[in-house]
């Protein structure tokens, strides 16, 4: 009886300690969120969102930085989606079970773990210098593409695997080729998962600084790029540059910038998640 009691007591203690750790995580996250919002909301107004920075960003707005980030992410999406989705299709529908496929999987998980600054170096050497795209939206987007690809590939493969095998067989049994089966049945059926996973990956790309540090970003630029070969301002880089190289940077404006960035990423991610669960309710296997 005594032994049982002691076991119960130990369990209670363990549970409390572990629970406290879980709560700590929640508290940290809540603190981060509240801190950003409370420090940043004052700066947010239409003018701040649309006008360009004045006096090295101590005054004015962040219009060009928002636009630049949108540019970068759009171009990244343009490159990443087709390639990433096809690569996911390869792994799920075409790849044989062999050493090569295993190596590809290994390469993909490894790509996800390569430090973002190393992608920056690679982008500098490959796109800025060798391909001679200069420091530009194009170079930055290509660099971000390399970083985002593993996310899109993994999301696609997982979504494709959810599609029941029966559905593929039904299409093949109707005399469809493999590609037609993939294009008309498998891909449409798995779109919610693919799109949501990709959006989450692209939202992350929007917040990256290190990869664009020497491939795309410029500290001050009065307007949006006119071509993919122009440099751009970007939200995360703007925060970094202000904090580290502008004396007496404006706290209000920089926290405002951080809020815009975090809110943008969160809103897009949440919207993608909600959209997926709505779609999932429609398609149930």
């Amino acid at each position, binding site marked *: 009886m005594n032994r049982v009691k002691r076991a119960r007591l130990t369990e209670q203690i363990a549970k409390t300690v572990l629970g406290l*750790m879980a709560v700590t995580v929640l508290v940290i996250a809540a603190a981060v969120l509240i801190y950003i919002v409370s420090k940043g909301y004052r700066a947010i107004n239409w003018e701040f969102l649309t006008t360009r920075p004045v006096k090295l960003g101590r005054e004015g707005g962040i219009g060009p930085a928002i636009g630049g980030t949108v540019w970068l992410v759009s171009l990244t999406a343009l490159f990443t989606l087709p390639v990433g989705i096809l690569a996911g*299709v390869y792994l799920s529908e075409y790849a044989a079970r062999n050493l090569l496929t295993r190596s590809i999987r290994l390469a993909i998980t490894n790509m996800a*773990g390569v430090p973002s600054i190393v992608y920056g*170096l*690679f982008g500098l050497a490959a796109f800025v210098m060798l391909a001679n795209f200069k420091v530009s939206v194009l170079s930055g987007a290509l660099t971000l593409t390399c970083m985002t690809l593993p996310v899109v590939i993994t999301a696609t493969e997982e979504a494709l695997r959810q599609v029941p095998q029966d559905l593929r067989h039904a299409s093949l049994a109707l005399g469809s080729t493999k590609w037609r089966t993939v294009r008309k049945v498998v891909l449409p059926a798995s779109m919610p998962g693919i799109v949501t996973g990709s959006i989450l990956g692209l939202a992350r790309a929007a917040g990256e600084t290190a990869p664009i540090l020497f491939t795309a970003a410029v500290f001050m630029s009065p307007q949006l790029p006119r071509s993919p070969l122009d440099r751009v301002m970007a939200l995360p880089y703007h925060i970094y540059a202000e904090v580290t190289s502008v004396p007496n940077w404006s706290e209000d404006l920089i926290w405002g910038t*951080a809020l815009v960035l*975090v809110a943008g990423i969160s809103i897009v991610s949440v919207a993608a998640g909600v959209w997926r669960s709505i779609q999932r309710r429609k398609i149930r296997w």
Partner: protein
Amino acid sequence: MATRRATEVVVRALVFTCGWLAIVILAAIAIFLLTNGLRSIDEVGLGTMLTGTSWYPTSDNAQFGFLPLILGSVFVTGVALFVSVPVGIGAAVYLSEFAGRGFKEVAKSVVEFMAAVPSVVYGLIGVAVLIPWVRTTFQLDSGMTALTGGIVLGVMSIPTVLSISEDALHAVPESLRQGSMALGNTRWQTTYKVVVPAASSGIFAAVMLGLGRAIGETMAVLMLTGNAAVMPTSVFESVRTMTGTIAAEMGEVVRKGLHYSALFSVGLVLFAMTFVINLAADLVLERQRKRWRR
């Protein structure tokens, strides 16, 4: 019919190319780092760089010793693991073994939010909150220390450690838990005697991936550690990490110069370290997946 066959062949080629691209990119990264770092490896020597204790890239008698940078990364990462491992694993065990459904759902979204916050924003919070706190609490001249960067980095890697540990715990078959409980063990006894050991390889992988994440993180450490390129002796000193060095100096170097090349060599070392860490984690995870598959 001929066109149908042709389409199929073209599509096949395209799909295969995209599929193999991951290997191509990974190889290209290694090759570009190596070729651009070649000049420094040639002129300074890899051994000299790896064991050199001074990093004076711009002085007349330039010295490219990586040790201060590597140690800087090690110090910061060490602090980060000190934060993320107990909290991450503890929270994962709680969520997987004890928490109710509602709490779990909330925690999942919260962790996703934490992972989505950009590192530059964590850096900003560190600048505003942690730097002053470290300075006054430990009565230092400057709050920009390895400790400061490490704490923020630890918070940033909690989502990685937590979610992968939780996956590993979740993969342990329910029958094992029931078997242990049926022998009269409490939930906690079951957890530490059966569930955690069974998931240990996955938890190990989680720690490795958290480590990889921390070592490769750039922006937050760049903004928080003060970036003094000297051999660190304690976590209360300013340090400069490998990632921070590349980020801070690449903007000002002469392209294709020796300093430029040396920074690529730093990148190569960084790449090799994370590659080994990730590979190890991946192999461990793979083994675990196989174990539970049947």
